[in-house]
């Protein structure tokens, strides 16, 4: 059994792989000692080898993981597992968003990450949802009920939040503001995709891919279908598990 662990900024994901097939996965919000938590999550599995990825990869490596790879490589491997012909991966997680372009053989050809700010990330959506009194699930649903074109100008989380508050106070409906927030995130992601020169097929991973409104807006803006893996938040962990399987002979099961 190969185990991949993705120690992200908001959640820890564990995926297990047996004979090249995803067998099981676990997702938990991360606490104060992510490496300990990750190890507990591995708990009942009997891994032959563990590869860590995500922000906490080096911490996990120090304590128990045999190997580390970056999130970039992990997503490339994980996305190809679901869609062997995909060429571009858009991953939007809690703290960052990234676009990865692959070559034909699935190796990373180019990638781009957001700068040191939360704009266009899952965290941005969470903060905006909270300031409108929505849960993250309600937030996307509410946005889909609106057809008003209200525009949020600010890309900065701090400024956008005050913009949202003044919109609220000027009587704009929460659903319309929700739509505006989703549109602003979408245009940022489309900007990143265009900048790097994306190629079809595009896979969308990370927790934000669970938001149907962002997916719909992306497809409308790009005019192409966007492919979402069954469990978009574990693509990185799965990629790490695939890597764990690569560098070892198959006598361990």
């Amino acid at each position: 059994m190969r185990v991949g662990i993705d120690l992200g900024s908001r959640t820890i994901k564990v995926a297990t792989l047996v004979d090249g097939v995803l067998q099981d996965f676990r997702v938990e919000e991360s606490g104060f000692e992510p490496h300990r938590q990750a190890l507990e999550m591995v708990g009942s599995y009997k891994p032959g080898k563990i590869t860590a990825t995500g922000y906490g990869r080096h911490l996990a490596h120090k304590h128990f993981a045999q190997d580390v790879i970056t999130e970039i490589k992990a997503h490339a491997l994980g996305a190809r597992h679901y869609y062997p012909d995909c060429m571009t991966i858009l991953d939007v997680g809690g703290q960052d968003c990234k676009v990865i372009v692959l070559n034909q053989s699935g190796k990373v050809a180019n990638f781009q990450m957001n700068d040191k700010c939360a704009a266009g990330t899952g965290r941005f959506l969470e903060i905006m949802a909270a300031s409108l009194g929505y849960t993250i699930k309600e937030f996307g649903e509410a946005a889909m009920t609106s057809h008003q074109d209200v525009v949020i100008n600010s890309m900065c989380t701090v400024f956008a939040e005050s913009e949202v508050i003044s919109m609220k106070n000027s009587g704009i409906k929460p659903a319309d503001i929700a739509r505006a927030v989703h549109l602003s995130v979408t245009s940022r992601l489309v900007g990143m995709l265009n900048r790097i020169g994306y190629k079809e097929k595009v896979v969308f991973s990370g927790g934000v891919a669970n938001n149907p409104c962002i997916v719909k807006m992306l497809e409308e803006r790009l005019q192409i279908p966007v492919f979402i893996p069954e469990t978009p938040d574990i693509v990185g962990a799965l990629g790490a598990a695939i890597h764990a399987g690569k560098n070892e002979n198959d006598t361990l099961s």
Partner: protein
Amino acid sequence: MTAQPFEVKPYPEMWESLDMDVPRFEKSRQMLGEVYTNMYLSQTNRPAKMQYFDDMVSEIFGGRIQEMLEVKKTGKPIVGTFCVYIPEEVVVAAGGVCVGLCGGSQGSVPDAEKILPRNICPMVKSAYGFKAGRICPYFQTVDFVYGETTCDAKKKTWEILDRLVPTHVMEIPQMKNKRDKTLWLEEVHDFKAKVEDVCGEEITTEKLAQAIRVINNKRKALQRLTALRAHNPAPISGKDALLLEQIAFYDEPVRFAEKVNELCDELEERVKNDDGVADKSAPRVMVSGTPMALPNWKVHNLIETAGAVVVNEESCIGTRYFKDLIDENKSTMDEQLSVLTDRYMQIDCSCFTPNDDRVDQVLKEYRDSNAQGILHYSLQFCHTYNIEEIKIREACEKEGIPYLSIESDYSPEDVGQLQTRIEAFLEQIRE
């Protein structure tokens, strides 16, 4: 072996006499010592001749300042600078000292942000902050600061800095036509007059010829170091080489060249024996872009901690400073100043337009250094380098060179993200 812990030596009385904020500076001194111990002394298989440069860091706020004060006592000029356009041969010809000032640390940025806008270059903010906070002994020692017009943030900050320390501004042309050289030559004449005015002595042809040789020798020594780094395995770490390029801006030039050459002798032996600081299979990265002023070791440290080695810096604190020499065979002052100006006009700073020579230079250094990828580094808000990056990226795409561009400042807050990007870049090179 005596296990004396490394420290940047304290000189509280001298600092007091230089009107410094001593209690605060004492903290920076300790911090620099700790950072240096962690980032530098933890490296394995360092060349033995790095000892001299460790000592130069240890004496950065003390011994070297004392030497400069000795020179100052004799009435010779001490000129501070932030730019490789300063005709330092002129200062050296006057018997003076040309020194790169502090401007590479986040610590002084809050001092600057009390008055300067926040959204400008971190180097400009850091530099201004060092003077405003009285926490750079070099700033406190100089007779005047040499400023230039390479960017908007600098040229407007000089006006504000001039209130704290006399600042002589030279107009750097932004194009390379004949009339631009005429302008620059006139500026060099003015600068010479300014230096002569400070020391009250005329700069003779003989003195200038001697100074040209001295600085050429310093640049040649650094060229030799760069050539040795092309060997695989790399005989010296990128961090150590960057440190030398940084020390080049504050050490005494004759002694510095001698010590660099001694180090190069050792590196030659290493090259013969295939003795390197990293494995032969370690990815070789060239860094290109904006300067990294001491103690800005952030990017090199990330690259080398991730198991790669930096083999070249195409930067002002790097090859841009020493790739060109001055013709030593001129006998009249006019001819000397003319060839001096020619040399400075060859600098391919992004403040020039067009500046396609730099694109060729980057590709040449990539090949010469046997690098396997280029990391473009731009300071935040450095518009000229940030925009010129487009052409460097396009050239790398065309040549199939693995390429990563990062924009950063001196704060440690983006280290996690930079680490991910750099490691992903190394994964690309390794595959």
